[in-house]
């Protein structure tokens, strides 16, 4: 299991691998998969904007998304086959000042994805609960889970190569 912690990203083409972002609160977990290539990437984004602080690309929405796309390409994925899912962006606490980092994170991730011509296929965002986002490489399923609850499927699994591209869920 490869874990993307705060500000980190992981990319894999190993069918036995699982990618996880554990306990997302106001952070956003971004999963991108290419079924045909059998490649997936997961970023754990912390803040909306880097403001040119270049030290950790995975931490900010505006720098994490181009970097994740580059790494997916290097692993053999092709952009037009990308399927994208996001989770997180919760408002965990009512803080004085009322700065809703979760909502700002989600807006920044969506706009950075749009800038890269990617649409969000599935999302579980906002609200007040923490979530874990998981990508299973064997069939490229993407699931999300809240504390004390059952996982919910965001992107339905389908093993690469064995099903035609237009096929329904198995």
């Amino acid at each position: 299991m490869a874990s993307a912690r705060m500000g980190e990203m992981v990319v894999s083409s190993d069918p036995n691998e699982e990618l996880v972002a554990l306990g997302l609160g106001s952070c956003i977990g971004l999963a991108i998969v290419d079924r045909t290539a059998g490649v997936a990437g997961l970023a754990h984004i912390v803040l909306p904007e880097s403001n040119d602080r270049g030290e950790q690309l995975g931490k900010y929405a505006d720098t994490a998304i181009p970097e994740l796309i580059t790494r997916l390409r290097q692993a053999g994925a092709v952009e037009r086959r990308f399927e994208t899912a996001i989770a997180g962006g919760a408002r965990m606490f009512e803080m004085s000042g009322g700065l809703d980092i979760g909502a700002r994170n989600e807006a920044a991730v969506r706009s950075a994805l749009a800038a890269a011509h990617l649409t969000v296929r599935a999302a579980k965002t906002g609200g007040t609960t923490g979530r874990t986002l998981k990508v299973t490489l064997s069939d490229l399923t993407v699931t999300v889970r809240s504390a004390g609850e059952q996982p919910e499927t965001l992107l339905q699994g389908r093993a690469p190569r064995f099903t035609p591209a237009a096929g329904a869920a198995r």
Partner: protein
Amino acid sequence: MTHDQSQEKTRVSPSLSETQLDALRELANIASGTAATALSQMLAREVQISVPRALALAPADAVDECGDPEQHVAGVVVPIQGDIDGIVLLLIPYEQAEILCALLGVEAHTEVGDSALREIGNILATSYLNGLGAMTSMELEPSPPQLHTDMLAAIVSSLLIGTAEGDDLALVLDSELDVSGDPCSISFLLLPTSGQINDLLAPLGLAEPSA
């Protein structure tokens, strides 16, 4: 094959010296002693305190140090204001929150149970801040507590984003309060806002010369 290049980058070395971390640990030790006394009086039980830790780490590492990221915990958050800003955080494993409520004679996961946990947070944070204030002559005021039951990492990471203010370094002072006779322990954390660590060190004569 997993490409995991970013793992390396987050392991920044602490920018605080060992002497400074020792001083912060000692502050936490005395302050959590005050909090343990308050908890002991409230529960009429003996309360043991672990040796506190003072951690200055990348936020991702700081979250890992707090425990299993997916552990279901009750988190009581007490924002503090005054000479320094920050957050006092109590983390109680979900099942142990039930034991704690039972010791107080209320039912857990009810309005009364939740209110009791917030009150514990309030009393512990106030005594901790009194202890801290006595040593540093700082004025520190707790705000009303908030209770949130969720995954540990979701709680801690969301709070650290606020206190680390986008910095690469999060400061965590933590200690463990164990209620004897029951499997019941409370992790007690102080998360000072990162720009103000110097203000915490200044009264001890250990502040960094201003850059």
